[in-house]
């Protein structure tokens, strides 16, 4: 493999037909279907999850409530997307295979300011619409308890401006499905000291915690929307994982559930302190070492490799992939497709092994 | 001269003007919301479009547009409509002259029909403009509303527009004088004088048409 560039001949469906090699179909011949082996496999999979495509009749049983991805006429329920049928209680819906991130209340997301408007910011969160962050939903310098003043409205850009990255929680959803965010917790707010990367949101599984301290003194914010921030671990990050936080009960970790009540983690005086202008600073810490930067880069490449292999991204997998990536001393070599595939395979195999072990 | 106002029903004002071999339709839409680039802070913006009977608009039509705008602007009470727009669209159905050589009759037809359309649209005007097209022949005779053949044989052609006030009985100004060909100063003044007389008599027709229109509108 060249160290300068890898150029591979394209493969996949661009030139060859994935479907069938015999080239023509007669319109009046009804039995052109997949080869037997494929058809068999279909049946097996069908047992697990029923795949439907738009316009297909899902059920003619009127008992079902019709959810997302369906429409109906009389008793018939049809699918409006290609995906899998999900039946939860009496709600029937079809989950599309792909689609933009659709926010849910409580999601921990990473977003980028797209527009500064009247008492609100519009935030790009990779969804169908920009999310809204109201001026009243952020902590302002001087503590959360003070009133928002007119001067705050005028200097919104000095808090957050176009391009700024932040992490936030989805506070509520509007009628049309767009999200309203808040950053009223110290674990939310402007992001500094690191690198941004992005993966499809479908690879991020909603979980209790989306901020993780990783080996090598790196903290990751895994936005549910697929936006990811890698940064140098700060004191705050460490404090969150410290036993003190744990002492207030296992359910009260730094999760979305308790986020509106940050005093459980940090004393009110700390809060005042942290709510100074510094939380909106654009300055990075002066002491980010080279090895730290390299670690961040390695994590970024590891995450891209996982995404390339369409492996769901979790803290455990990031760590094990990071460890496995040590086999490649040259971080830059991790962008090569072969290496990414090998890394992905390592992770899957390791998990299988562990699974077998138990 | 035959004029029919309210000829079209999708615009605020319109007129169908026919005078000998000239046939023009004029529509006026306004006052309406202008586009940002058209907007004038203190007065009405005018958008004049002239569409030829044959072919696509060329510089000839743009010249016509400019001349029409120049005549129409002073008679409209433009300061009554700040930040608004008036679209004047003229469709020539028959020009009555060879388009490549002349634009006298078309110009006068456009201006006269515009005046009617403006009145039909109830856009405030301070006076009326009356246009006369004339040709001076080789033997020194003046012909009003010359035919195409007469235009071709003429030594000079003149388009005159007068601003009439005081019940359209008094000529206040010459709004446009557009003369081509060979003529001397004295001929020009004679032409003006002759044209003025004709304009005053034409104005009577104008008023009659308008009066009939208003009566009709009132008692509808």
């Amino acid at each position, binding site marked *: 493999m060249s160290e300068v560039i890898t150029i591979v001949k394209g493969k*996949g*469906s*661009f030139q060859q*037909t*994935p*479907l069938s090699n015999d*080239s*023509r*179909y*007669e*319109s*009046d011949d009804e039995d*052109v*279907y*997949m080869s037997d082996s*494929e058809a068999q*496999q*279909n049946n097996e*999979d069908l047992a*697990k*999850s029923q*795949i439907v*495509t*738009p*316009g297909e009749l899902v059920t003619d049983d009127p008992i079902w409530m019709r959810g997302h*991805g369906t*429409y109906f006429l009389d008793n018939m329920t*049809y699918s*409006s*997307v*290609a*995906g*899998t049928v999900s039946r939860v209680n009496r709600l029937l819906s079809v989950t*599309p*295979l*792909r*689609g*933009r991130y659709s926010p849910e209340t409580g999601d921990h997301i990473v977003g980028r300011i*797209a527009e500064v408007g009247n008492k609100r910011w*519009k935030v*790009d969160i990779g969804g*169908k*619409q*920009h999310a809204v962050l109201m001026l009243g939903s952020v902590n302002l310098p001087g503590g959360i308890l003070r009133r928002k003043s007119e001067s705050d409205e005028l200097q919104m850009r000095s808090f957050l401006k176009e391009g700024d990255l932040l992490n936030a929680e989805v506070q509520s959803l509007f009628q*049309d499905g*767009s999200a309203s965010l808040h950053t009223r917790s110290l674990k939310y707010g402007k992001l500094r000291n690191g690198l941004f990367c992005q993966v*499809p949101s479908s*690879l991020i*599984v909603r979980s209790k915690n989306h901020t993780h301290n990783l080996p090598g003194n790196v903290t990751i914010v895994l936005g549910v929307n697929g936006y990811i921030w890698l940064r140098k671990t700060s004191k705050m990050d460490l404090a969150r994982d410290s036993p003190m936080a744990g002492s207030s009960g296992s359910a009260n970790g730094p999760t979305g559930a308790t986020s509106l009540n940050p005093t459980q983690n940090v004393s009110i005086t700390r809060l005042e302190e942290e709510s100074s202008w510094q939380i909106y600073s654009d300055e990075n810490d002066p002491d980010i070492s080279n090895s730290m930067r390299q670690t961040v880069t390695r994590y970024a490449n590891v995450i891209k490799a996982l995404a390339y*292999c*369409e*492996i*769901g991204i979790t803290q455990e997998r990031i760590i094990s992939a990071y460890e496995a990536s040590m086999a490649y001393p040259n971080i830059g070599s991790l962008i090569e497709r072969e290496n990414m595939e090998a890394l992905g395979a390592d992770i*899957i195999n390791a998990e299988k092994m562990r699974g077998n072990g138990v | 001269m035959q004029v029919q106002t309210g000829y079209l029903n999708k615009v605020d004002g319109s007129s169908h003007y026919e005078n000998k071999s000239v046939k023009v339709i004029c529509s006026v839409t306004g006052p309406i919301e202008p586009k940002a680039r058209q907007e004038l802070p203190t007065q009405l913006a005018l958008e004049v479009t002239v569409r030829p009977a044959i072919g696509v608009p060329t510089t000839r039509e743009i010249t016509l547009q400019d001349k029409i705008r120049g005549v129409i602007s002073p008679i409209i009470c433009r300061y009554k409509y700040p930040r608004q727009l008036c679209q004047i669209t003229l469709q020539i159905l028959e020009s009555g002259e060879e388009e490549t050589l002349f634009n006298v009759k078309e110009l006068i037809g456009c201006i006269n029909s515009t005046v009617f359309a403006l009145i039909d649209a109830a856009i405030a005007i301070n006076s009326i403009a009356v246009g006369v097209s004339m040709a001076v022949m080789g033997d020194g005779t003046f012909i009003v509303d010359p035919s195409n053949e007469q235009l071709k044989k003429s030594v000079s052609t003149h388009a005159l527009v007068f601003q009439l006030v005081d019940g359209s009985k008094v000529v206040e100004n010459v709004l446009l004088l557009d003369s081509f060909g060979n003529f001397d100063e004295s001929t020009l003044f004679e032409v003006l004088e002759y044209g003025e007389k004709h304009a005053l008599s034409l104005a009577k027709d104008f008023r009659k048409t308008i009066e009939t229109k208003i009566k009709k509108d009132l008692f509808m």
Partner: protein
Amino acid sequence: MSRLEIYSPEGLRLDGRRWNELRKFDASINTHAHLSDGSSYLEQGNNKIFTLVKGPREPSQRSQLDQSKATLNVTVNITRFSKFERSKASHKNERRTLEIQTSLVRTFEKNLMLQNYPRTVIDIEIHVLQQDGGLVGSLINGITLACIDAGIAMYDYISGVSVGLYDTVPLLDINSLEENAMSCATLGVVGKTEKLSLLLVEDKIPLDRLENVLAIGIAGAHRIRDLMDQELRRHAQKRIANSSKK
């Protein structure tokens, strides 16, 4: 040209097909995951078309914002090299291109559930790398696939195909040689119904033959719907198999 026999007495066409045969139909979806929310690559005969769907997403211009539904835009980029003979001028602002774009917007406006995505815009971008007859039908198929890939809710498939009429014989899914030699109709058929979302006839066809042409077109379009459905299901199986990794 006269040397070529459009339809031989033995019932064979220029490329060896019979009257009711489709051209090779190869489709794949999710070809441009990095660039778009949904994408497809379609080869229908020698038509080669990329379709990218971007959105539903925040409109970049306020004028595109509709409170009640998504705004749909379609741009068709017919490349200058798409025909055998390279075209001298760009096709971008040609009336025909604008007409195709408008027709496609109006076809899919009624089929996509735009009311589910208020205040957003869906941009569909099509690049025609090569064309060989029946272009509009292929564009419809490409859009259907790419929209499904994007997860945009729709009532049903729309499949497109062109049918020519050679004397009294309707020829299904014509290529450009056939298209130039005879009259033809393009159909956009909704799912497995006999409903037409789009119908374009651009040359003379005897009124009494039209029904026959439509019938064969509908049958062909249903077949194309099935072929698209197969590709989608194949792709779905693969993704589901993959997602077990998650």
